[in-house]
């Protein structure tokens, strides 16, 4: 019997974005991004353990404006994935499954991610100055 091509559901493109779906997608996206951040960390460690030239290259990369931009993005991804990950762990033990709680914890995760990222860069800038 030939398989018939039937429409699959749900159609993501006709759904209007909601905080529940957007945060869920963001959790995956930041997770994938952070894996690349991990590869960057491994490269930084290797350069620190390597020659003076290798470390100087990685330090220049990290302190250039594009390097700082990438590090800023990674820091936000890390904070978002951390706080939303704790939200996931809470769900795993059965906490926060009511719809109003979903919304509350979702907004809390966004606020905590933004505030902690700002805190990290405040500390980093003050340390560099």
């Amino acid at each position, binding site marked *: 019997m030939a398989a018939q091509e039937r429409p699959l559901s749900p159609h993501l493109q006709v759904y209007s974005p909601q905080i529940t779906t957007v945060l869920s997608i963001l959790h995956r996206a930041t997770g994938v991004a952070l*894996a690349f951040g*991990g590869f960057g960390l491994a490269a930084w460690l290797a350069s620190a*353990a*390597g020659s003076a030239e290798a470390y100087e290259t990685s330090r220049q990369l990290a302190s250039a404006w594009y390097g700082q931009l990438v590090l800023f993005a990674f820091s936000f991804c890390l904070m978002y994935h951390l706080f939303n*990950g704790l939200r*996931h*762990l809470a769900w*795993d033990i059965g906490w926060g499954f009511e719809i109003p709680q979903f919304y509350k914890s979702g907004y809390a995760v966004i606020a905590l991610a933004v505030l902690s990222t700002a805190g*990290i860069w405040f500390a980093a800038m003050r340390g560099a100055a």
Partner: protein
Amino acid sequence: MNLRHPVAIARGLGSAKDGTGHWWNQRVTAVALALLTPWFVWFIVQYAGADQAGVHAAIGQPFNASLLLAFVLALFWHAKLGLQVVVEDYIHGWPEIALQLAIKFACALATIVSVIAIGRIVFSA
């Protein structure tokens, strides 16, 4: 009719012989990373812009080296488990197999690179 052996049902591992192993490992590494990330952020903010001697002195401390090692081990294990699920969900056929292999190799290699780098700094401190 159930063709599964009673022992297989009792073990509860299913046809993949894996059971909830993947899910559980992802949670265990998540908890480890949730505990280690605040320390890692504090550490990296202090030493990200430092000169090489400063970084060596910091990672050369056994306490810092131990936590950094724990962080990268949990990180690449967690990354491997997470990337694997993303690829399983969205990519199929030969590209899936190629990507799954690439993910395993990349995470394994990044782990080895990190362990050797930390080890070299610690043991030459």
